[in-house]
């Protein structure tokens, strides 16, 4: 199976994720779309690792997963805090965060 | 959907009750309810604030029966019960109303708990009762005094001897009839056996609620022995109708005493086994200690009696304080707790079983000879052999069976110490052969009021444990 195929999947998923981050207005779903992009990156990393026959790419993928987990923890914390303080949850209306 | 929303009150100027409501007997009731209509503004406010109030709707169903009918209008009052009382939370707290029951494995019957949760913590709980109401008190008014005993027994179905005792005691107070000593001792033996049986069921079901499944079977094994004893002495396992006005129905049969003594030897070992399983069990301790605490003052304000009050440290037991039926003859102790938590309730009940065994042992040892029912032929049926020889006995028998005894007019309230607290029976006689009013003060009914205070602020699992340790019996609550 040519590595190009995997890279193609990775590119498509990345593009979908990018579009989703723009369209989605629910912060939870924005986070979810970010996850998509991160995972597309992961797939590319692992594909390259396979292509070059070195495992550094896999290590990077693991680090990306950790970063994603951290991002999720903080992001979901923000969503819950938002929900506690406001009724409507919509990124476009979150003017307070602009400082 | 929108056409289903209830319409208020109907037309207050609607035609009189008889026309609209159909069944003719409503007309009899109409004057009373209509009388309330004039005097009801404040209660109408309470019940829902509709103009004319629900009681008006009682008398005047809407003339147009095709739409949503009169019965929906009554539900205005339900709205009130859904309100959250004393829910003290922050504004950012999320509340969840959950409806436990009437069909729920842990409500010990058809109790319904309207529970408000914040996460896992109970913020408010409202018991809603009445699903098992069978109108026993009304039924009893339609029966001769001695024929009302079986229905009275069926109220609190785990304390049937106690129900019968309270009722029979009240009627005996009215009749001022002397109960023979042997009958009193037999009553004591059966009452205490019944108390042990009731506590055993409590033990099994409570531990089942905590998740310990085996203790249930062990407790029911001993309960079977007691039920066998009941069957032996009266022919029935439950609702035995053994207590009669003036004594007991029959002397104990031959061999019953030996069976009882075997039980008396066996039972303390069994209680030791329960203690070994539960008393020092870490999980039991964690689940029961410092849970459901209510101070003695609060409990007394709620009118709570029995093991619950004793667990809070008040040594109040009617068997000692106001002994009837020869309880003063026996030497026993009143177990009391210190803190009033669920663990104390458990300890008190288990200790009570041991004390009951002591009483039974003394009673069976000192069981006096003599008649087991009063010699008063106006009250008790004559013995079988007299029927063949004595005309007078035959007349008494006939009068009693067909009409029953006439009880002098008056009122009596006879209270005894039931397994759940003070079990009192109020009987009013109007001089006829049927009681004019029977009302049972059932301990479960009263104790349940304190449940809200016990459960508020606890975890929902502790609420279940507290309910189990409260030991409500829906048969007694709803009557």
């Amino acid at each position: 199976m040519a590595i190009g195929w995997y890279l193609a999947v990775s590119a498509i998923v990345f593009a979908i994720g990018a579009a989703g981050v723009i369209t989605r207005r629910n912060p939870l779903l924005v986070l979810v779309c970010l996850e998509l992009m991160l995972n597309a990156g992961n797939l590319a990393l692992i594909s390259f690792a396979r292509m070059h026959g070195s495992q550094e790419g896999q290590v990077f993928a693991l680090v990306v997963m950790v970063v994603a987990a951290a991002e999720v923890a903080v992001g979901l914390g923000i969503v819950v805090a938002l929900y506690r303080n406001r009724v409507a949850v919509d990124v476009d209306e979150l003017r307070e965060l602009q400082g | 959907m929108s056409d289903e929303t209830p319409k208020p009150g109907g037309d207050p100027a609607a035609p009189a009750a008889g026309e609209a409501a159909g069944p003719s007997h409503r007309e009899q009731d109409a004057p009373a309810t209509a009388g309330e209509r004039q005097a009801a503004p404040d209660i109408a406010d309470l019940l829902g604030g509709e103009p004319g109030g629900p009681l008006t709707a009682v008398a005047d169903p809407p003339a147009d029966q095709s739409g949503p009918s009169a019965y929906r209008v009554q539900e205005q009052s339900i709205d009130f019960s859904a309100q959250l009382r004393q829910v003290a939370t922050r504004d950012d707290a999320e509340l969840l109303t959950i409806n436990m029951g009437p069909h729920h494995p842990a409500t010990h019957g058809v109790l319904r708990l309207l529970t408000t949760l914040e996460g896992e913590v109970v913020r408010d709980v409202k018991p809603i009762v009445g699903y098992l109401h069978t109108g026993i008190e009304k039924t009893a008014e339609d029966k001769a005094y001695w024929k009302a005993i079986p229905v009275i027994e069926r109220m609190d179905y785990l304390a049937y001897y106690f129900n019968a005792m309270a009722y029979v005691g009240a009627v005996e107070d009215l009749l001022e009839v002397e109960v023979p000593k042997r009958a009193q001792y037999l009553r004591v033996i059966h009452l205490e056996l019944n108390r042990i049986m009731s506590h055993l069921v409590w033990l099994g079901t409570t531990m089942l609620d905590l998740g310990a499944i085996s203790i249930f079977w062990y407790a029911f094994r001993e309960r079977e022995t007691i039920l066998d004893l009941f069957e032996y002495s009266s022919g029935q396992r439950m609702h035995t109708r053994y207590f009669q006005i003036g004594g007991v129905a029959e002397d104990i049969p031959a061999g019953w005493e030996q069976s009882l003594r075997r039980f008396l030897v066996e039972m303390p070992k069994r209680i030791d086994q329960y203690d070994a399983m539960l008393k020092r069990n870490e999980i039991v301790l964690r689940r029961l200690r410092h849970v459901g605490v209510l101070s003695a003052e609060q409990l007394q304000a709620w009118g709570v009696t029995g093991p619950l009050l004793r667990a809070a440290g008040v040594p109040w037991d009617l068997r000692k304080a106001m002994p009837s039926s020869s309880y003063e003859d026996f030497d026993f102790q009143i177990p009391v707790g210190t803190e009033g938590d669920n663990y104390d309730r458990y300890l008190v009940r288990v200790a009570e079983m041991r004390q009951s065994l002591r009483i039974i042992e003394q009673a069976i040892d000192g069981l006096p000879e003599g008649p087991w029912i009063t010699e008063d032929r106006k009250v008790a049926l004559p013995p079988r052999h007299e029927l063949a020889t004595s005309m007078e006995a035959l007349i008494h028998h006939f009068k009693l069976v067909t009409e029953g005894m006439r009880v002098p007019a008056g009122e009596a309230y006879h209270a005894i110490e039931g397994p759940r607290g003070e079990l009192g029976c109020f009987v009013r006689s109007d001089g006829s052969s049927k009681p004019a009013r029977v009302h049972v003060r059932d301990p479960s009914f009263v104790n349940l009021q304190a449940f809200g205070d016990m459960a508020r602020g606890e975890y929902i699992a502790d609420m279940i444990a507290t309910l189990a340790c409260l030991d409500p019996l829906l048969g007694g609550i709803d009557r």
Partner: protein
Amino acid sequence: MNEVLFFIAGPLAVIAALGVVVLRNPFYAVLSLVAHLLSLAALFLLLYAPFVAVVQVMVYVGAVMVLYVFVNAYVGGATDATGGPAPTLRWLSYAIGIGVLATVVVATLGSSLKAIDSDGAKIGADFGSPGQIGELLLTRFLLPFEAASFLLLVAAVGAVVLARRRRGVLPGEDRMIAALDLLAPTGTGSMREGVGAVNPVPGALSAHITPSTGAGSPPASGTRGDIDGEDD
């Protein structure tokens, strides 16, 4: 065999990713992401990264996504903001998506990577095994490893601080009326609803945000608690 697996898992990953972006119900979107991650794990296996694949399932699917589902159920599955994005924004997003796709494709294909149409380099039997990855992590990449774990710690603390309740719940304190008080009682299964006395579903408020419990169907279904629903 590998081709078959790829052509199952690859398109599934793409479709699930599309689902994440397209589905209106956040709950379904999150579930779609779970499906996407599982198919990615399959792709990782095909790329000889078994350890990463299993970690993907264990950590991502098993923990992170459960957290998502939790928060989703907790927030009540509020639908994506009413009306969706403005049309211009939507077209813009399509354009950006396609632009990004084109850029990435050009970047990868145009970079004249030699091995891109090959199966990859020769690798050993234990390529991507836990032992190998662990060795790399603790030798060459020790600093990123430590940094990542520190980041995780900070994130955990931060999340707890963010999501905790501001003040304790004290009995006896007066309760302020919040917007939630007006919304939450509908649909929380009060006795009024039980008898059909109030109609929980229609009306802007209850449609906009479902009760705080999230106990029940997605708000789109709109018939929850509707006891009169079926045949009258």
